[in-house]
């Protein structure tokens, strides 16, 4: 009798402790994932900060007017302090990491001082421009190394906790890529001791006009379906499913899903006028048979068929056997940056795989565009003289206040990088300077 009771108690005890052990283990796992995520976030933010820093310093060098320069310096200062914050969260306390910090504080000091002073009265001296140039070069090299390390962290799933643990146990002979990577970065910065004290998506379209000017009659579900069948070029009723958008939608739309074999599509048509705001067709595109240029011709024809008029391709890019084209609307030879449309073409047979016309329908309307008040030559004088100008246009873009303004648009290069500069066509204000080169590959 006692024996059975003892066995039962023991069994209960063992299973209870097993349960406790597994739940403790689970908890521990959850905590370490959280800690790891925290480190990962700080690290990826740091590399992003450094990327942005490099880009901003580059744009600063391409700028001319003082009104734009001061906010730019403030911006760099803010990013620098972000970067310092993120750096401080990384588990590097045991490493001599002060050189990178030093670089950040140098650039922070410089931009703070210049932003705080009245650049109208005391503009940047040649010495200061040189300093900025030096910082630009340093940030480029730092970036390259950081990006290489980031690439390794992402592709090899390196863990910061492991790096931290091996640091904590003071294991001298460790083989740790994260540590090695940071040591490389560190060496680079040290090499600069003598040297002295370098956006986010291009988006000139406003999102605030919110479909106020959409034209047309309200269409029924049946009419919407009919239109979509024409777009997808398949009249098989069974392959479609149609729903009305919910009350959170910016504009009332019909959401249509199409599915047949390995072809799967999603189409949004506005209920007013039946305009296509988003089309995405997914199917395999295994080979490339037609060129990016041929694809552009297909995209132009497609837009005409959908009754978009006066559209001009401004960017073209090839991704994995598909071509992606951004078009903007032109009115009397003025480029309207708010009214953009993207088209995606399969480069095997030229089929249209996608259309994104949200910006266009959000903003497009009849505009009365004034004549420019200053001449092209006057506008050119407002551009940084170091920039070599290759092309000019008239354009309407959204300025910082979200207002559409008529500008002269210049494309120019400085130190091998291409920039786009908008100069206000009525008062000559430098509205925007943006870098057109991507940050590039890391291999």
């Amino acid at each position, binding site marked *: 009798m006692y024996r059975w009771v003892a066995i039962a108690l023991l069994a209960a005890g063992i299973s209870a402790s097993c349960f406790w052990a597994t739940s403790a283990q689970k908890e521990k796992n959850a905590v370490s994932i959280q800690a790891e995520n925290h480190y990962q976030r700080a690290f990826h933010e740091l590399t992003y900060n450094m990327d942005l820093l490099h880009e901003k310093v580059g744009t600063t060098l391409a700028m001319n007017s003082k009104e734009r320069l001061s906010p730019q310096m403030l911006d760099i200062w803010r990013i620098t302090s972000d970067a310092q914050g993120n750096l401080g969260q990384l588990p590097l306390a045991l490493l001599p990491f002060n050189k990178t910090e030093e670089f950040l504080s140098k650039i922070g000091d410089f931009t703070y001082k210049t932003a705080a002073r009245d650049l109208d009265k005391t503009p940047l001296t040649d010495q200061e421009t040189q300093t900025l140039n030096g910082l630009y070069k340093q940030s480029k090299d730092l970036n390259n190394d950081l990006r290489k390390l980031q690439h390794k962290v992402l592709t090899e799933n390196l863990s910061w906790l492991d790096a931290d643990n091996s640091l904590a146990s003071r294991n001298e002979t460790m083989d740790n890529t994260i540590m090695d990577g940071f040591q490389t970065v560190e060496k680079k910065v040290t090499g600069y001791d003598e040297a002295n004290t370098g956006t986010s998506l291009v988006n000139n379209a406003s999102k605030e006009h919110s479909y106020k000017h959409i034209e047309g009659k309200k269409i029924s579900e049946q009419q919407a379906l009919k239109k979509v069948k024409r777009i997808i070029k398949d009249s098989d009723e069974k392959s479609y499913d149609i729903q009305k958008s919910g009350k959170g939608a910016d504009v009332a739309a019909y959401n249509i899903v199409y599915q047949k074999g390995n072809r799967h599509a999603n189409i949004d048509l506005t209920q007013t006028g039946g305009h296509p705001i988003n089309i995405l067709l997914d199917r395999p595109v295994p080979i490339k048979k037609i060129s990016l*240029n041929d694809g552009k011709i297909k995209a132009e024809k497609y837009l005409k068929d959908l009754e978009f008029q006066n559209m001009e391709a401004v960017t073209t890019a090839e991704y994995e056997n598909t071509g992606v084209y951004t078009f903007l609307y032109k009115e009397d030879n003025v480029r309207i940056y708010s009214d953009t449309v993207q088209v995606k073409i399969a480069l095997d047979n030229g089929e249209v795989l996608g259309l994104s016309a949200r910006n266009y329908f959000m903003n497009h309307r009849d505009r009365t565009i004034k004549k420019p008040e200053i001449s092209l030559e006057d506008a050119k004088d407002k551009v940084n003289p170091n920039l070599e100008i290759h092309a000019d246009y008239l354009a309407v873009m959204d300025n910082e206040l979200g207002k559409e303004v008529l500008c002269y648009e210049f494309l120019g290069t400085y130190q091998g990088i291409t920039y786009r500069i908008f100069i206000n066509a009525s008062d000559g204000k430098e509205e925007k300077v943006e870098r057109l*080169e991507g*940050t590039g590959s890391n291999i």
Partner: protein
Amino acid sequence: MLKRKIGFSIIILYFMMGGIQAALPAGEVQAFSAQVIHQGAVGDDVIELQTRLQYLGFYKGKVDGVFGWGTYWALRNFQEQFGMKPDGLAGPSTKAKLVKASKYNPQQSKPVQSANVPIGYSENDIRLLANAVHGEARGEPYVGQVAVAAVILNRVESPSFPNTISGVIFEPRAFTAVADGQIWLTPNEQSKKAVIDAINGWDPTGNAIYYFNPETATSKWIWSRPQIKTIGKHIFCK
């Protein structure tokens, strides 16, 4: 001794002939494909274009097989100096003039992996986004994956969320795949494709900043958000 010399000569002769044989097909290789090369293109034609423009001193950048702005201005300068209309397109006549004026040996060019990266994003940004999309929506239809990427980008734009990609992804309790570590699964090609579509402007959600799976959602609050639409298993909302 003599025998050895003959032996050597035979070996040398053999190599020379081999060399000639190897050189012959290279001479016959057609320069460029028949396609018109447009800005934004990637691949062998672009590598040849850059190498030839570099040979003539017009192109000063890296031969990376991506037809970017640097290549564009170089090509226009070339067209201008050789009496053509500077349109920045490498068509038949431009290519013919280039071939005549410069040298190119495809065997000598190093193989490069060329890929476009949308402006404002690094390859690592794309990889991080692809990780998140794969962890969150790998069982979803393609459009559902583009949608998840679009929500992350919408959050970056939104004033109520962090303003960096990594900030949004690693925000505590924001994504379940981050909380349970699934984000560190290796993403497939499809999630990368979805990310690039989202970056290039496709937003199937219609500007949503939240989404949830109604079968597994535990929070009551999420049901109070104004819904926009359903894609796959996810409901997207404002």
